[in-house]
Each structure stands twice: as C-alpha cells, then as structure tokens.
C-alpha cells in the first residue's frame, strides 16, 4: 500500500534505540500526520467504533453496544458535570466556605436505586439478544473449525471437503523487506466459503492449545478448546470477504493465524463446493502420477513458504526451529526424512504433517528441502512413494 512507503523513516529511527527516541517519535508524528493526507481509505484507517457487520446478530450487538455506550456517556455528562461545577465554583481561592454536611439517607438511597433501574433497562435487551445467539438449531450447513498452532482447518461436514487455511502474508512484508499489502496479516491461501442467507453452524474445537475463532463482521467469537466442541451460527446478508483473527493467546504465532470468510450467492457456493470435491478427486488421481524434479521443486517451495518458513526461516537457516541446511535429516536417508515429516517430533514444535499435507505436497516439500539452499542431494520423492511409505507403516 501506498501510505506505508512513508514509514521507513520512523522505522529506522525506532529500531536503533527505542528508549531514547521520544522526541524523535514526536517529530515523526508530524511526518505521519502529513502522510495521512494522501491516504485513500480514511474511514477504515481511523476506524474507532465496532463494525456494524453483515448479520442480524452483529447489527443487534452493535445497537446494544451503542445503547450502553450512550447511557454511559449521559451518566458521565451528569456526574462529571457536577464534579467540574464544584471544582470551578467551590474553590478556596474564590472564597468558598465549606459546608459541613456529610450524609443524607434520601440521596444515598436514590443513587443506589436509580442506577439499579438503569441496569435492569440494559439487561432486558442484552438477555433477548443472548438468547437468539444461543439458538444454534436448524442449521443448513455445518462446518467444523479446528484451531491449530497456527492455522485453521475447515471441514464441511458430510461433504468430504476439508482444508487448512494458512496465512499468506510473506515473511518479507512482516520483516519490512517489502511493502505491506492491503490485507497485511489478514490474508489466507484458502478462505472458508459460505453461502449467504443460509444458517451456517460452526463447530469449533482445537488440536493443541486454546484458540478463538473471531470474525467481527459476523459478530462471532468462540473459544476453540482441545477435546471439547463449541457451536455458533451465522446468517450472512451480503456477499463479501470478511476478515478476522485468532482471539486467544495460543503461542508464538498467535498474531499470524487470520480467518477469512468468503460469503457468496448460493449458486456460486455450490459451484465452489463441487469444484472442491472435484479437486479432491483430481488429487486422488494425481497421487499416482509422477512429477519432474522441477515441478516438485517449484511446488515444494510454495508448500515450504506456507508451512515451514515460520520456524525454519525463509532460506532454511533456522529460527525457532533448527537450520535445515546440511542437517542430518535433510541430507540424511530419505526414509528418515519422510517419517519425521509424517510423524513430527513429540515434545517439540515440529508438528506431524502426515495429516496436514497431502501426498503430493509432502513429496514436493521434501524434494525441495533436499535440493534447496545448497543441500543438492539430487534425489526426489514421488507422491506414490509417500503413499507407499504410509501404507507400509
């Protein structure tokens, strides 16, 4: 995006000495105030209120939010009004003489009872909204949502369609080596697709630690708890792409597992679903095909950038995870490498990818790792080898 190209000045200042640059920060503030003039999407940038959203529930919650907010504002005006009045009128410097009163049963009773009545007035609409939110019955579509460290899996129940949804923002954008895109940190490879005007029920659980599935425009937020299942529902009114994020601290990449919901007309949804099923069929076919080294390498690089880069780094030099350059695994026996990828390493952050990657991607990423970054093993793996290996286990 345009406007962020203005930022590097402040960044380089900040990265030098964060604790001694306050005056410089203040200067950069002026710089950035100017830069805001060239920004196109002002409303989104300075967003300071809850989005109204695109569902009946989200609108109801928005109204509730505004109602309570306004009640608070008015109470605040009255209370602070009295306070500032006495701070201005009852100063010693203007000769005020203190009175002596220090209790009044009537007044004290009044300001206990009146707030209680206001609270009841708030509780009534809140209760009715909550009851609606809790009614998950009669859903048209059920989608299981599983939180993983650090991605989401969606499974369309009864449809044999299931996929992972990974962050696609490149590491270069995150580390400031490339300009940040419009949907920085809110973009995924495969959004969850739902039809509009249908009651969609999400069954939410987790694979490892707690996560929380949250899409503000749908006003849906629910914790994903390993071993337990939670359900929430939504009916989206307008087609569109709605973005959200994980809302429960789940470890290192908690800030890097967005949610993208793509709501479309029902016909389009059906088409998408059929295509998805077709893809699954094709994949089954492709499992038996052979690929060239170049094909595998190119595909493997993509898989690597999605699944491995967060721990092993963009060029395999390691980070949180060990370096893959010349390691005993990537330059060791093929079988060991494959087993490790399928089963993961217990007690470490290395996950079991056997279920998460299909056989083609598994073959491709292993081939890539064994031949990239100067590993130059020259060997490669075909999907059918992965299949056979899994069968032989």
């Amino acid at each position, binding site marked *: 995006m345009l406007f962020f190209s203005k930022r590097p000045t402040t960044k380089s200042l900040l990265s030098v000495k964060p604790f001694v640059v306050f005056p410089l920060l203040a200067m950069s*503030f002026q710089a950035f105030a100017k830069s805001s003039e060239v920004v196109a999407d002002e409303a989104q940038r300075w967003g300071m209120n809850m989005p109204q959203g695109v569902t009946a529930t989200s609108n109801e919650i928005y109204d509730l*939010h505004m109602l309570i907010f306004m009640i608070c504002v008015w109470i605040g005006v009255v209370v602070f009004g009295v*306070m500032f009045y006495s701070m201005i009128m009852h100063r010693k*410097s203007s000769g005020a003489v203190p009175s002596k009163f220090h209790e009044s049963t009537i007044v004290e009773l009044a300001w206990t009872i009146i707030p209680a009545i206001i609270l009841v007035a708030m509780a009534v609409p809140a209760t009715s909204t909550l009851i609606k939110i809790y009614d998950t019955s009669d859903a048209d579509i059920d989608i299981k949502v599983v939180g993983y460290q650090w991605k989401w899996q969606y499974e369309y129940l009864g449809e044999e369609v299931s996929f992972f949804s990974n962050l696609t923002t490149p590491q270069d954008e995150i580390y400031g080596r490339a300009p940040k895109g419009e949907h920085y940190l809110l973009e995924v490879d495969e959004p969850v697709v739902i039809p509009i005007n249908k009651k969609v029920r999400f069954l939410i659980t987790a694979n490892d630690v707690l996560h929380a599935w949250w899409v503000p425009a749908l006003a849906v937020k629910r914790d994903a708890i390993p071993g337990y299942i939670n359900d929430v529902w939504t009916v989206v009114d307008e087609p569109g792409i709605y973005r959200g994020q994980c809302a429960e601290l789940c470890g290192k990449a908690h800030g890097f597992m967005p949610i993208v919901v793509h709501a479309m007309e029902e016909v389009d949804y059906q088409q998408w679903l059929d295509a998805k099923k077709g893809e699954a069929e094709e994949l089954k076919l492709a499992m038996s095909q052979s690929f060239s080294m170049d094909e595998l390498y190119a595909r493997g690089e993509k898989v690597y950038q999605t699944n491995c880069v967060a721990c092993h780094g963009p060029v395999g030099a390691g980070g949180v995870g060990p370096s893959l350059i010349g390691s005993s695994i990537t330059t060791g026996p093929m079988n060991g490498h494959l087993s490790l990828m399928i089963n993961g390493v217990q007690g470490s952050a290395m996950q079991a990818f056997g279920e998460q990657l299909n056989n083609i991607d598994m073959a491709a990423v292993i081939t890539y790792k064994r031949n990239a970054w100067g590993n130059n093993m020259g060997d490669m793996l075909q999907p059918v080898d992965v299949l056979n290996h899994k069968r032989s286990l």
Partner: protein
Amino acid sequence: MGDHGPAQGFGRWLFTTNHKDIGSMYLWFSFAMFLMGGVFALVIRAELFQPGLQLVEPEFFNQMTTMHGLVMVFGAVMPAFVGLANWLIPMMVGAPDMALPRMNNWSFWILPFAFALLTSTLFMEGGGPNFGWTFYAPLSTTYAPPSVTYFIFAVHIMGASSIMGSINIIATILNMRAPGMTLMKMPLFVWTWLITAYLLIAVMPVLAGCVTMMLMDIHFGTSFFNAAGGGDPVLFQHVFWFFGHPEVYIMILPAFGIVSAIIPTFARKPLFGYASMVYATASIAFLSFIVWAHHMFTVGMPIAGELFFMYATMLIAVPTGVKVFNWITTMFRGSMTFETPMLFSIAFVILFTIGGFSGLMLAIAPADFQYHDTYFVVAHFHYVLVPGAIFSIFAAVYYWLPKWCGNMYDERLGKAHFWLSFIGLNVTFFPMHFVGLAGMPRRIPDYALQFADFNQIASMGAFLFGFSQVFFLFIVIKTIRGGKQATEEVWENPEGLEWTIPSPAPYHTFTTPPAIK
C-alpha cells in the same frame, strides 16, 4: 522507651521489625518493580509502534506481555499497597507497630527472592513464561517452556508473602487499635485494607492451588487440565478467575481508601457517607466472588451461566457508583485547593469512572462477544489499574511523604509530574478503546494496517508516561534529601491520628496509646 533509633548499616534493613522500615522497603521495592514492568511495557509499545516485526521476535514479545502483567500486578501494585499499609495502619489506629513484626520482616524479604526467580526465567533456555499473565492451560502446561516450574515457585512465594502480610494486617487492625478506636471510627484506608486482607486470604490460596495443579499436571502425570486424562482446560479458567476477579478488587479497594482520605482534606469538608462507603466496599468484595466467569463469556458456557454472571457483574456498578457519588458530593460545596495529591485523586475519580463505564459495557455478554480479548479490554483494565491503583499510590506518596521524611515535596514539580502522567496515560490508553472496537486482538506482536495510526499514538504516549515516572523518582529523592520543613499537620486540618505526631514520624510512635475523642 520509644526513643532508641534504628540500628546502623545494612543489618537495620535485613533484620528490621519496624513497620516504618518495612513499609519503606516495600515501597522502594515496588517502585523498582514498577520501573522494570514499565520497561517491559515499553518493549511492547516500541514493537507495536508500527506494523511489522522490528525489534523483537514474537516469542520474546509474548514473554514481555506476560512478565509485564505479572510484575505490575504482583510486584508493583500489591507490594506498594502493603507498603502503605505498613507505614500507615499502625499510625492510623494508634498502634506502636504491626501485630507480628518478625513475620512482617519475612513477608517482605521473600519477595525480592520471588522476583529474582521470576526474572531469571527470561535468561533460561526456552525463555521465560510466554503464556500471558493469566497462564491458561494447556499453553502453560503441556506447551509451556521448561522455565514454567520456576514461574510456579515464584507465584507460590508471592502468594505466601501476600498471605503473611494479610494475616499481619488483620491481626493489627483487630487487636492493636487504641482504646476508643471502634471499627466504625477507623479511617477508610484501614477499612478497605481490612476487607482487602480478607480477600487476599480467601483467594491467594486458591491461586496457590491452581499453580500446584499445574505443577502436578506437568511433572506428576495428573490430568487436572488435560482433556486426554479426563480433565478440562476450561476448569483452569474457572479456578484462575475465582482467584483473578477478587484479585482485581485487591488492587483497587485500598485505592478507594486513599482517595477517601485525600479528597476530604483538600475539599475541607468531611467525607460524605462514611458508613455507606464501608458497606459499599464490603458488598463489592462479596460480589467479587460471584462474577468470575465474566472473563470467560466466550468459552461456551450454557446460557443460564452467561446470564447469571452477566447480571451479577452489572450489579457491581451499584456499590461502585455509590462510592463515586460520595466522593463527588464530598467535593460539592467544599472549599477546594488542588495540591498534587488532590490532582491525582480527582484524576482517579474521573478516569476510574471511565474504566468503570467500559467495564459495564464488557459486562453485557452479547457485546462482550465483540470486545472479548481485544484492545478494548486492554484499555478497560489499564484505565482501572493505572489511574486507579497507580495514581492512588502516587497520591498517597505525595500526601504522606512529608509525614514520612519531614520535608515538603516541591509542589511545582509534583504538579508537573501529575500533568505529564495524566497526558501520557490518556494518550497511551484512550486510543486502545478505538483499535479494540475496530477489531484488534490483544497479545499480538504485529497487526493489520488499519490499526497503525492509533497504535503509533499509543506508543508515543507510553514513552511519555514511562519517562514521567523517572521524574517522579527524582522528586521523591529530592524531597527526602531536603526541602521545606513539614509541620506536624502538614495539610490544613487533615483528619487522622498520623497528623498528631511530629514530622518526620519518630522511629517509634504510639508506644502509649493515644486518647481517641
């Protein structure tokens, strides 16, 4: 008797059983922790100054948020209040010292040990605690770094220190009051601390139980919080918040007491509704035990549970409102002056009320589905804790410092400190309401572009606020080293026994009980 001074050298501090010495040590320790927790906060704010990862990696960022929370809650706010209690309660009730002076020494000296242990985890392999100050399982058990065991022991020691401190305070208040000092004559600071101490005794053991269960899950193969063995991660949250919610009030009730002492002095008018203040404090303390699950509206409780906790939480607004109204009515038709303690107290009333408003919004369960775990929550509890707990501590220090060291602080500098803090605080935390409502989750090291502007403003405010506190250190040291001699009363007709003794307060006071009117 009563005239011999303190021992000399380091031994004075190591072996002291004098409530004033111990109070001072608590206060200095908490200030050191306040600066350390502040540095952690500035690391967070520096990283969040703009989108992208610039200064720290996400793992370290998570350690910073965790340590910031733990250090500020257990290291800065709680010990500061215990320090004030040590200094003030014996003087306020006309007692020569705390009821259990030797235990008093212990409860202080195990604290630095606990925090050394906690801080050392940052340098261990795998890093320090990175699971948030709420340390939800299984991130804090099965998936925790190895240093979690040290974290657990540190929490145990902090808990022991708090419990010992509370027993001491309760025993002092119930047993050591001067003749004629009936319960309903006690200053509100003493009352609020008495209730706080009971809260501590009720919930710190639950926290100890909670971390003990974690320890057993991690090392002894139990499954309290592990679904595979029949446990439940949600149970962890119930146990934690059964402690955690009263803990929030532990950090605010003594502040109520402080403000209730300061506002009448500078309004030159007795506190309005003393009795209702006591009852309101007691009912807040009671309610704090039945609202804990409002921290967990999104875990998928049945609707009956959601409704119960929503209604109970909303109820807290009533006694809290009573307190705010009482303070304002105390000011009403008074004769006000605005010295530094009063400025901090007025800011307390305003900003704490704003924190209360956002708290009321968060109590509404359906709306909480949008607010939960966003920066709106961060803004809310910082509005309650910074101008709430921290500002009240500043107010207390300015108010009683002349009594402690015998010198007046420099009013001009004090006011400058106030305004810098006030502006810094609002610039830091007010924009957080906006980004929270707009959809920014908390505890993330990097964020989407639309949150950039308000985050930048918040970061600048944070540095302003942070550096103002170094200025506060300067003011306090300057006051201790010299300045205008303070009178016995210090202020104009303040109420309380502590103003009947000379300034600085002699090493031993009230060795013969004072007469109470």
